[in-house]
């Protein structure tokens, strides 16, 4: 299991780089994950719109939203989501929003 250093604390990531404990997520941690997992040095307003929508959906329903809902809820177009997160909506955006890895062919 991998760990990343966050303000002097060891944060546990699972084998695929997702937070072991989704509950500890916060925006500063998202920035660290962005750099560590997606190679993104900074997060733009568009990144945040996507991440915050996914996070609030997850906190309410304990699951990842459909990309349809992400587009509607964040106001970001589909192609732009793929451009913003190189690993895609699941292994990119959901991971930075601190969600567990979705099941299925992802």
């Amino acid at each position: 299991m991998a760990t990343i250093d966050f303000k002097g604390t060891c944060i546990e990531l699972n084998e695929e780089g997702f937070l072991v404990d989704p509950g500890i997520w916060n925006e500063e941690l998202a920035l660290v994950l962005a750099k560590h997992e997606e190679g993104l040095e900074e997060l733009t307003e568009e990144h945040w719109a996507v991440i915050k929508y996914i996070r609030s959906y997850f906190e309410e329903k304990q699951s990842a939203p459909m990309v349809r809902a992400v587009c509607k809820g964040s106001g970001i177009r589909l192609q732009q989501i793929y451009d913003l997160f190189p690993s895609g909506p699941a292994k990119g955006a959901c991971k930075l929003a601190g969600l567990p890895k979705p099941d299925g062919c992802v």
Partner: protein
Amino acid sequence: MSELDELEVKLKALTEAEIESGLDVFKSKLREAEVSYLNSCVHCGLCANSCHYNRAMPELENVPARKLEHIVSVFKSKFTTIGRIAPGLVGARPFNREMIRAWVDAVFGRCSLCGRCSINCTIGIPMPSLFRAARASLASMGLVPSDLQATVDNSLKYGNNMAIEKEEWVETVEWIEEELQAEVEDTEARLPLDKVGAKYLFTVNPREAKFFPLSLQASAKVFWAAKEDWTMASDAGWDLTNYGIFNCNDDQAGAIISNLTNAMERLKCKVLVIGECGHGYQSARWMGPEWLKKHFPYPVISFLELMYEYLEQGRLNVDPNKNTQLVTLHDPCNLVRHGGILEPQRRILRRVVNNFAEMTPYGHENYCCGGGGGQLSMGKYKSRRLKAGSVKASQISSSKAKIVATPCHNCVDQLMELNKEYSLKIQIKTVAELVANAIV
């Protein structure tokens, strides 16, 4: 709790009776011919170089014959007289916790059931069938890695492997219909749901609905251009995946495939079309009738066959100059080596792109991308999966292609990860995406 702990906790809790019954399940999955194959390995070593795990990470435990040996030694110890009387003489070993750990590691942790070792075996030992029998035994003891099992459980509970609710699926289909109408400038373009009596029932991978709907839009565009009579189910029966083929619990696999057969009966369609997917095709076309012990009274075809038919019949106007970059093709093991669909995808690509090059080797001898056999969903083995994928990554680099087409969403996802891991700088597309792009 980490996956490693998870296995140890489960192993500790196993009773002797459960282990005994696990062995019975193993034996029950073997046909006579397979039993004889358990005794036929001549240790020639040819399989070693055929396996992408062993090519990427040469070590004894990655050699297919070694993986088989763990299984054979248990079979001898339990089910042969000489193995019971003089185990040391024939290499018979007991099915204890240490051996069960070795089985889990060999058949879940170091094998994608791709079958390349089998076609390169001097004897023709059907390794995937034997490894599947071992997985079935482990499944009966509750030892399927939890993330793989969760994917099966989603299908059993929700009718699709990503736990998508009906409203979410329907809303996505309606959205993609609007997008398609805008793309082709035709308000009559449809993604029809529940059209009773339609000729074709089309099925998709839930990851298209959940995260990657452009591939669904591309398939729908092909149907639109061909003016086809088609539909999809709004309830269970739209998802073509079946992870029961990977956890090897045949009862669960049968329950999942019933979603498709029930939808065919409910909607009275004439042909079941499996969208671009390796294991989905293998499940519906070849394994489904075995699991359900019944004949499917309608053809089950791959969407590739249908797209090729449209091109042959002149129902699609395509311009290969719409796809000018060099394209290569990755062959999904379940579709090609196991499924027998080899030519349609190549014939399609030669018509819709103007620059196509095969990988070396390709077709029946292709290397697995590394994501098959349920590997993509078993997080515990991610590092091995990506290393094993280095064989495919180097094939892709050698091809010089800028686009890798593959008719399988599972392969798409693994190739996306290989793209990142090995800095391949490629685009990965389904075949329908390239066809749709070439439609004029």
